[in-house]
């Protein structure tokens, strides 16, 4: 179990996404069957970039510094990353907009849902927790 806690500031987004890519790389190195390691790592890199961005973008200013927690857990053949923040609750099934209307946002959760095998959302102790799981050898949407 690897845990990282960061202030909800946008300048840390690349630190978060690079960390996710590196953890996924280390995890997938233990699977000889992982013939799609690049896609697996990219799925984590991109999903964490989206989730961390949202955690920062929808933060409500408070007296205390808002902190975002990123948690990685390898479970046999699956890697799970969860991102938690103290923002208001949100709908993880948020529908993405029609691309033909030239939308400048609204694709973060869609990307996460498409890149990961399983995405769960829970609200606990006043915090959002989005939890994202993927198997290295699952090529469904992860292949590059």
């Amino acid at each position: 179990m690897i845990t990282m806690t960061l202030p909800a500031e946008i300048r840390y987004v690349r630190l978060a996404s690079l960390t996710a890519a590196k953890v996924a790389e280390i995890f997938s190195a233990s699977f000889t069957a992982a013939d799609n390691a690049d896609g697996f790592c990219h799925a984590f890199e991109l999903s964490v970039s989206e989730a961390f961005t949202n955690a920062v973008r929808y933060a409500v200013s408070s007296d205390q510094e808002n902190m975002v927690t990123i948690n990685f857990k390898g479970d046999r053949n699956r890697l799970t990353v969860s991102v938690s923040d103290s923002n208001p609750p949100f709908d993880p099934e948020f529908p993405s907009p029609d691309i033909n209307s030239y939308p400048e946002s609204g694709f973060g959760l869609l990307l996460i849902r498409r890149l990961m095998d399983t995405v769960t959302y829970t609200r606990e102790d006043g915090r959002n927790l989005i939890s994202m799981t993927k198997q290295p050898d699952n090529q469904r949407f992860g292949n590059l």
Partner: protein
Amino acid sequence: MIIIEKICHNITVVALQGTLDSCSSSQLHYYSSPSVTEVPLVIDLSNLDFLDSSGLGALVEIARKKREKGSDVKLACMNDKVRKVFEITQAYRLFDIYDDVEAAAVNAGNKKNSL
């Protein structure tokens, strides 16, 4: 993200290097500002290592503003990681995408190809 401007076939080519995400996407705002929306543009993605949906949003904004003025932005040389974002969001429909900068520059003065 590092932005390098060059000229190819009289067209401004903007080469993006590094990461285009929610932290760096504001660096592209200039290219959707009123003073340059009428000018055709090529964006060279060959050295862009990583793109997320916020970065994509900045590219979509440039396309929309240019098209409103009858101009266009063409994209060149996206790697597999960048292409993935265009596929899942279907943003590939909004852009003319070329395999090399040369071809993009030659076609930069044209309106977007209809599908």
